[in-house]
């Protein structure tokens, strides 16, 4: 791989991040909603109480957070703080910082969504490959129909069904939360806590797995079918290679490339993927944090989470881009070849 290519990709990565961060800055500002007033609206709606000098209080907070400056100046302040790694403070939960809030929520999301994404990728890809493989047993091929049905049902709807039947009616698993409240004062590294955590994660994980398994399986099956007729597969069969070798080395390896690209995007999108499910199950991850921030127009939290998401997608795409030659020898970044 040429160094020049790597540099170009990194520069492109910065360009992508800057563009996305700029769009991210202006979108929430298009709303007329004033986040400081919204904070006091929350107070008035939730408590019935409004301070008598509300406008004065709002003005003093706008001054404190720089929201009274012209938009261009606010944009430059925003870019400058992002470059310094300072994501600012939450407008709704001041004095808590955005980094604090993200730091608190991210591990839950990475654990739940990261685990389910990898698991569904592995299971779905394998299932899809087998479903498209002509020599697979018929029961494997028949999984395609239920997978198509599941793929059409959103994880949120599946979640509602699971909660109702398994948690509410059968009472087999907890309805919400990440661990049993009152049982532990705070998260801890102990076997009882981990088991409790697993128990709470089963339903949200199942909702996500069931809803996305079809996506991976159908994608892989589709690619697998196109690979089957390729000359190199036919040649391998005529050479008398073992079916296992043909399956993994000729069939799966050539069909998996788009899956890997999707996996990189899925990793970057785990924040948005989990918003509804995290909310439904009361799972304290970054998706529900983003949802709350959007509802409250908490600009700085939205920017912080958005920026991290953009960064994650950009970096994952870069990594996958660099890994392509290892996965598919046909891809070379050396121009001479």
């Amino acid at each position: 791989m040429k160094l020049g290519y790597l540099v170009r990709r990194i520069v492109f990565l910065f360009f992508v991040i800057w563009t996305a961060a700029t769009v991210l800055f202006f979108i929430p500002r298009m709303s007329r909603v004033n986040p400081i007033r919204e904070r006091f609206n929350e107070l008035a709606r939730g408590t019935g109480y409004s301070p008598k000098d509300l406008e004065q209080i709002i003005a003093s907070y706008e001054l404190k957070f720089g929201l009274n400056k012209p938009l261009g100046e606010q944009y430059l302040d925003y870019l400058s703080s992002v470059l310094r790694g300072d994501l600012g403070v939450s407008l709704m939960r001041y004095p808590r910082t955005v980094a604090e809030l993200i730091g608190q929520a991210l591990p839950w999301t990475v654990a739940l969504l990261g685990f389910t994404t990898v698991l569904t990728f592995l299971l779905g890809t394998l299932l899809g490959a087998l479903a498209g493989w002509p020599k697979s047993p018929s029961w494997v091929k028949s999984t395609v129909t239920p997978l198509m049905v599941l793929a059409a049902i959103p994880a949120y709807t599946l979640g509602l069904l699971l909660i109702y039947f398994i948690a509410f009616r059968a009472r087999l698993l907890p309805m919400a939360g990440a661990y049993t409240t009152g049982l532990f004062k705070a998260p801890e590294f102990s076997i009882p806590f981990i088991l409790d955590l697993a128990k709470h994660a089963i339903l949200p994980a199942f909702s996500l797995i069931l809803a996305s398994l079809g996506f991976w399986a159908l994608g892989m099956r589709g690619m697998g079918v196109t690979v089957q007729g390729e000359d190199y597969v036919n040649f391998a069969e005529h050479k008398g290679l073992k079916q296992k070798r043909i399956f993994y080395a000729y069939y799966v390896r050539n069909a998996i490339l788009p899956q890997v690209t999707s996996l990189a995007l899925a990793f970057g999108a785990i924040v948005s993927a989990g918003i509804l499910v995290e909310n439904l199950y009361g799972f304290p991850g970054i998706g529900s944090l983003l949802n709350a921030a959007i509802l409250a127009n908490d600009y700085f939290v939205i920017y912080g989470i958005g920026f991290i998401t953009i960064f994650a997608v950009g970096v994952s795409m870069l990594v996958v881009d660099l890994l392509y030659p290892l996965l598919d020898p046909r891809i070379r970044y050396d121009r001479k070849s």
Partner: protein
Amino acid sequence: MKAKLTRRQMIQLSAMAGTGAVLAACGAPAAPTAAPAAEATTAPAAEPTAVPEATTAPAAEPTAAPTEAPAAAGAEVPRNRSLVLNHGGAGGQYTNQNITNPYGTGYTHQEGNALMWEPLWYYSVFADKWVPWMSIDPEPQYNAAYTELTIKLRPGMEWSDGKPITSKDVKYTLDTQKSNEKLLYHAQSKEFIKDVTAPDDMTVVVTFNSPNPRFGFEVLSYKFDTGLEIVPEHIFSQQADIVAWQGGDDIVHSGMFSTTQTAQQKIYDIREDWWGFKTDFQKKPDIQRVIMVPLSDMTTAAQRVVNNECDACLDLRPALIRSAVQQNPKITTHTGKDEPLGYIDWWPNSLWMNTQLEPYSSPDVRWAINYSIDRDTLDSVVFLGAKIASIFPYPEYPALRKYLDEARPLGDELGVRTFDLAKNEEKMTGAGFTKDADGFWVKDGNRINATINGFESIHADIVPVLVEMLRKGGFEAAINFGNDAYQNMADGKPGLYMFGHGASVVDPYATMELYDSQFSAPNGTTAGGNHFSRYKNPDFDKIVAEMRATPPGDPKLVDQFMKAIEIYWKDMIDVPIIQWLHRIPYNQTYWTNWPTADNPYLNGAYWHNTFPLLVLGLKAAEA
């Protein structure tokens, strides 16, 4: 050794391992939900509960330990000693945990922090009673001219770090409110407080700029969501920026509980060393721990109460509360299992409008809107027969009743509750409107924008019904539950605003003050708070000024109120629609003696500042 596995063996092994993991997780320590067998609750013989007062017993008697419900393994406090409440947060997590400083911007008392801070007095609106707390005065003591308030503090009070609570702390609290413009009581403190002195450790004297017979109630007492907590001067004065300080779990405080907070829960544990126990001011409650669990969505919240995971949750919409009380016989409400399944909150809702904006500037148009509202139908359709629709911008509370009863005949005479589309037509044609082909009122070719701005989470049951009524009355009504709804109200945009009052609870002044011209922001500027009507009337202002100087309970206040409400109704400043209900499910599995209509020692909103009184009132069920 051959370690090769066939694919079949691999799949079998994986399936076994997976099943084992699932079973192990399911078999983890039982969630503390094992409840006593649900039996039909015969309402516990309601021995009216007195609002807590200082105990005179030499020592608090240890509470008889009831049979303990199965405690979750590892839990320090058993379930039947824990009050579990599903409240606050967003999407199932708290983002404001550890903000325990009541002056921090992200602070809220609603998620349990009210258990850590204390006022000089509590006021129980349902019992119509003052509860002296940090002050020993039965209620605020003013001089004859209401220009001075003298406060005597309770002896023996201590902060959680052992330092005594003195008049210096009270003085610091008030001085800080006066000087810091970001604090919620800055406006009142700046306007009214001339000086605060501490002549000795146990006495505080507040001098006012002008007579103020309500300062003690409005600012210094805890009721509903309002009131000022006293903070430790020796800690708070050390902070560089008081609103930028989180406080943390170990903040020095005065209340009965201490806290440990995470994103997933806020735990409040009883303080054995609380000054109130040491001085025999209060007996220890049965509750040893309060656990606040963040809300994910209201359906799940209701289900958690039905499943005995939680003892109560935020007030529910009608369909949910009806379903909850039907599904679990142990779930009751303020009115037992009868409609309206709740109690009246201090937030009666009106249809507000910008009275400076055409065509709402015309009292005739406002009256025509009022004539379109069929309050009897609202009662029967939305509230299943309970009398909740109202003609008052006041909650029907015991202390206000004498004023409201006095005004009722006038309301009848003026026809405020009258639903009459013929009168609507008379008013609108008189104001120069005609009806177009679709039956909507028009003037100069323009229809009236009667879009109702409101909030889906709390108005989804009533606003669609109002929209239908208004459309039948010739107003082009629609619903806006968007996140710009509040901004529209503050900006005075065309349309109607469904919003509450949150003002008077003991005397009628505070609500009338909302319509005082001093809050009438010109068009083009924002009018936050509950000042959306932008009403301006010098005659009305004079009456409000008289009311301001008249102490609650003074017979003159009745006459003043009658004059003010006459103008309010004749001008139809806003269109009063309903009393506001809190429909809270009380699960009696672990805790009994919830406040009810038969035993109204308090309102049951545990998220209010009066939460400690509720904690003292609840009794462990003998389960």
